[in-house]
């Protein structure tokens, strides 16, 4: 704790000192500490989420000023800028990438209300709305969806983006979304930044593309296989391929050189026959061909 921080803390009321002390202890006890946004999470749900994380991560919500104080005291200034709005501290001994995955997976969809800012583009999907013909088609068109009445119900003809991320939701849009049961928000602990072993990770860093890794694994395995086969270094995995390759090479040579080998004979005969047919195909005069080969 720096001398300056010490002095600041001294001026705090006792309960705040204790709160800051607890936060500092939390920060000290875990390898990774981050900031999570908790905006829009009803307290009941927040409690469930905290319970769900039990064993992997701890979430602690307190006044922002106290969080900032504790972070500064712990030297985690990188995180201070993320303490804004409704946030809490999250602490874990888990891999921060895993933490991020878990938090993302625990998010649930929620309706968006008039006056809220869209966190992402809001799209009315193509398809049958299931709503009977009526004024609703006008409401859909009014918010910019390509809708019309077809086959006795209101259909959306194509995916229609009705609001872009960052724009405010109008009363009309909120009504339509509500009518269609579209829940465009994802509510949950929103990881804003983590410091793990002194390294700061942003959500973009933490959002790993699992498919890309899977494809990397395939690529790595294919390369190892290629090397094993091409360098003729047999392993239990590649021995069958090497055998097949050697066999193929022998056959290839045998067919190319027309080697009189029992195993090759059926293929050599086939080859001769194929050549015969190929040549016959170049001959226009049917008189020159045996009946079997005439068209």
């Amino acid at each position, binding site marked *: 704790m720096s001398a300056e921080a010490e002095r600041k803390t001294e001026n705090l009321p006792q309960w705040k000192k204790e709160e800051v002390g607890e936060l500092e202890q939390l920060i000290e006890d875990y390898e990774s500490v981050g900031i999570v946004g908790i905006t829009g999470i009803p307290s009941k749900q927040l409690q469930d989420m905290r319970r769900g994380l039990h064993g992997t991560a701890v979430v602690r919500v307190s006044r922002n000023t106290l969080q900032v104080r504790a972070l500064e005291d712990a030297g985690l200034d990188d995180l201070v800028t993320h303490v804004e709005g409704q946030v809490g501290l999250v602490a874990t001994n888990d891999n921060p990438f895993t933490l991020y995955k878990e938090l993302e997976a625990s998010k649930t969809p929620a309706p968006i209300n008039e006056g809220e800012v869209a966190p992402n583009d809001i799209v009315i999907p193509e398809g049958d709305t299931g709503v009977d013909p009526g004024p609703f088609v006008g409401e859909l068109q009014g918010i910019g969806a390509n809708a019309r009445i077809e086959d006795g119900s209101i259909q959306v003809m194509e995916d229609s983006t009705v609001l872009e991320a960052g724009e405010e939701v109008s009363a009309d849009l909120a009504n339509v979304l509500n009518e269609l049961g579209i829940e465009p928000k994802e509510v949950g602990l929103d990881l804003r930044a983590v410091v793990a072993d002194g390294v700061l990770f942003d959500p973009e860093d933490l959002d790993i593309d699992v498919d890309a890794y899977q494809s990397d694994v395939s690529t790595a395995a294919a390369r190892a296989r290629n090397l094993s086969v091409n360098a003729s270094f047999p392993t239990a995995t590649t021995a069958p391929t090497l055998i097949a390759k050697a066999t193929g090479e022998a056959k290839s040579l045998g067919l190319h050189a027309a080697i009189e080998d029992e195993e090759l004979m059926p*293929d050599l005969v*086939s080859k001769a026959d*194929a050549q*015969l047919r190929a*040549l016959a195909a*170049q001959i226009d005069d049917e*008189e020159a061909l045996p009946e079997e080969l005439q068209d």
Partner: protein
Amino acid sequence: MEYVYAALILNETGEEINEDNLTDVLDAAGVDVEESRVKALVAALEDVDIDEAVSEAAAVPAGGAAAGG
């Protein structure tokens, strides 16, 4: 088919594919040679690039492997 095979043998050995040579090969194989077919074949092959035609057959899957085809 034997006429065409005879032509293929001659092609492979570099002998000219003419009536005499074809007839000789077929004779040796015990074929009752029809002169008109030999003539027709020689004429038909005149403008054919046999090596090319034959190597195209390389792309045809051969017997065993391709069976079922």
